[in-house]
């Protein structure tokens, strides 16, 4: 183009319009095609499986026999992942939405985003080959750590109130997310040093043997707790990000009103902000559950992969995703085991898709509500 568009005498020329129509048509066709291709995943899985369900090629009994342990393992792994992830994620979200200094928050959010991006295979490897043997060797230390961390945080809070005001200014609650790190690290090391003595004193130096003889609990090196911890670590950042969005999206006029009436920030959060943001927080937890159900590599590497059905968190399991990853490359296309694995994939797909859709609907409703609430003030 040598001349500006508006000055061109040909700007109403039929050729340009034809080109425009053509391009728009192409974009539309391409766009629809891509969207259809993406949606074809569900269709493919259904087409592969559903006919054989109706024709009776896959019997009820066969399905329940081979898929129940896998479904059990999936739910067990996801449950323990959420046990670790939800308190941490919601705590972190509350802290960063209400208390944290904005400067620190603008650093923390990308950091946790990076945590979300860590490949599952790396987390699974560390959990399965470093953490699991370590915990097996330092069982007492691991339990002591689980106990000491929350107590240590509370102790820090109590101790903080006893400090003089100059020191309290230097270590404000707004930056507690950062200055608690060295405290917790020191506490953790101290707990590990103390654990052997504690073990010797309480359990005769052999907690594992004591658990086995006194409580009758088997301990598998790669167990549900290890999987839960590793997968909780992987799931936590995405729950955190969504919950933080929901909490900090609550119109500030609500919280300010409560605080003007004399509520502390925690009271404001608990009585005003959290009820307003509850659907968003719920959506965050749902999406976390979806993630935990579908995560493959962590379960594959950290769980031992024995298709057990036990309630004990100290035993392993095999999840649907891990089962697919192990068995599908060897299954002959069209055989029963192939169909069963595709059925497992279909179940995973349906579950995550429904959970995510639910969460997305809840979130978009919530956004509309915030907008309304924001307009009122």
């Amino acid at each position, binding site marked *: 183009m040598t001349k500006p568009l508006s000055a061109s005498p040909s700007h109403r020329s039929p050729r340009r319009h034809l080109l425009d129509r053509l391009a728009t048509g192409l974009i539309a066709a391409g766009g629809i095609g891509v969207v259809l291709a993406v949606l074809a995943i569900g269709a493919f899985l259904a087409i592969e499986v559903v006919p054989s369900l109706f024709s009776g090629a896959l019997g009820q009994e066969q399905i329940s026999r081979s898929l129940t342990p896998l479904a059990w393992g999936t739910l067990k792994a996801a449950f323990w992942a959420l046990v670790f992830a939800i308190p941490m994620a919601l705590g972190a979200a509350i802290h960063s939405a209400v208390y944290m200094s904005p400067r620190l928050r603008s650093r923390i959010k990308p950091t946790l985003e990076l945590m979300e991006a860590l490949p599952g295979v790396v987390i699974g490897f560390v959990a399965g080959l470093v953490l699991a043997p370590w915990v097996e060797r330092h069982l007492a230390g691991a339990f002591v750590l689980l106990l000491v961390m929350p107590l240590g945080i509370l102790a820090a809070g109590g101790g903080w109130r006893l400090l003089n005001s100059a020191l309290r200014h230097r270590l404000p609650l707004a930056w507690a997310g950062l200055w608690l790190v060295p405290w917790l690290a020191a506490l953790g090391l101290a707990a590990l040093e103390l654990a052997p003595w504690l073990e010797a004193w309480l359990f005769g130096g052999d907690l594992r043997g004591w658990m086995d003889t006194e409580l009758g609990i088997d301990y598998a090196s790669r167990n549900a707790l290890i999987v839960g911890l590793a997968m909780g670590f992987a799931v936590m950042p995405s729950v955190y990000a969504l919950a933080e969005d929901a909490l900090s999206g609550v119109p500030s006029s609500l919280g300010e009103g409560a605080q003007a009436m004399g509520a502390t920030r925690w009271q404001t959060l608990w009585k005003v902000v959290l009820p307003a943001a509850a659907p968003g927080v719920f959506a965050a937890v749902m999406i976390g559950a979806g993630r935990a159900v579908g995560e493959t590599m962590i379960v594959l590497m950290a769980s031992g992969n024995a298709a057990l059905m036990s309630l004990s968190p100290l035993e392993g399991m095999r999840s649907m995703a891990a089962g697919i990853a192990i068995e599908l490359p060897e299954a002959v296309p069209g055989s029963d085991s192939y169909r069963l694995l595709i059925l497992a994939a279909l179940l995973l797909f349906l579950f*995550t898709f429904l959970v995510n859709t639910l969460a997305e609907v809840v979130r978009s409703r919530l956004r509309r509500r915030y907008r309304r609430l924001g307009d009122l003030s």
Partner: protein
Amino acid sequence: MSLVGVTGRVRLARGEGPWAWLAAGSVALSLLLLGGLLTLIAVRGLGHFWPASVSLVELDDGSVLAGRAVRELPLVPRSAGPDESGMSGGARERLYFTGNRDLDGHVWQWVAVDRIVESDRPRELVVMERLRHGDFIGRLVAVRAAGQIEAQSTEDGDVAWAALQARLSAVEVLRGERDDLVHGVIQPLVRRLENDPDDTAARRRLVEADERIRGLQESMRADVVVLESVDGRRLALTLDEVLRTWRPNDMSVPEKVGAWSRGVWRFLSEGPRAANTAGGVWPAIFGTVLMVMLMSILVTPFGVLAAVYLNEVAHQGRLTNWVRIAVRNLAGVPSIVYGVFGLGVFVYGIGGSLDEWFFSDELPSPTFGTGGLLWASLTLALLTLPVVIVATEEGLVRIPDHQREGALALGATRLEMLTRVVLPMAVPAMLTGVILAVARAAGEVAPLMLVGVAKLAPQVPMDGEFPFLHLDRKFMHLGYHVYDTAFHGDDIQAAMPVVFATALLLVLVVVVLNLTAIFLRHYFRARHGALTRH
């Protein structure tokens, strides 16, 4: 943010109660966990290349061992009676890497610390990386020609060491020559002969090249190094078995740093050895990068097209909204499901048909009907499509409407408005999307296990042979390398350093890509914040 501001003045007067501290603690705890994980991977991954000192340890029963101290743990009472275990509170044991698999049958040794009588670091201890049986740790006795009868008198250590170094560098040159010959002459000739078995000139040249290689091998084997383990067992190795050797106790820190950086370079540039437990990861790096590049070539145009359609062309009604939600949700569908789709549709469906139509003379061995580079890239492109669509759409939404209206008011058609105004402004958003997609694809392993990753594929899927890029070949991948080496090896302990180093490399790639995306998005938002305010 305003909450903090409003209460800033009264904060000191009142406590917030224990829950506020628990919330703060969970931030600290997650940072601690993340930091701990990254530190662990970085230290163990990088420490693998450090030429650590070797100690000579004498135990209370008079036996000696030489090895690298790896770690120390409190002693676990193994099947011990209760009376014994009660006292073991302070006892510790130490793990030594002793090498010498061919002599001892094992390479690791746990030693109770209180059994150690004496431990020091004599400078003449030699560590030798060998082609077979892993590392050797011990003393150097002599270097001599192969036929020579063993000298009874032990040579002076330093003289033998200097001789060994000189001959090893000569062998290194020969080895380079041999590899050049194999890659540059033999392999092309073999391929020519495969195509045309009657090519006598090629056959003659092949025989000549074989002759030369045999000569090179001969001269590499001309010298023998005699070694002695610290407990006095002798061992003779021809020099072609020796890859590298060093005396860690005799090295200064700068020398160690030099050796360390050479080790890192070798790790990045060489292929794996000894069932992936030693050597480098070059084929895995190449495979990952090539697969990710193919994937981004596939995913970028389609992702942008779909985003432009959803945001600029489609009627913004309820249906479009539902489609948008569905696409967004597909980002949350487990990656293994995409793998199943890829296996069922691409590999068995399309690949199987392609084989029947075009490669029927190769059947029943499949060409495209098995996992390969193309299907892996396609599957991952599908997996990352939602990421690109969502990121591009986010960029398109942020472009203020008056930019579009201005262009239309000046008489531009929709196509011109899109290509000259809207898309250029959305380029950073697209870039962000593609980078995020690449980061996700680089770390994804589960779907690849179904559609074409290989445990060992020393041949990279790109070479000088037509059609240069072999889309049907299997390839190696960093993430799968971590999984496979860590879980399917014989000696997992020995493979751990390589796994840690590979994991570190993978994490670095993913982190750098994500940081770029975060930075881009930040920059983009700042710029468009300025635009909307005008």
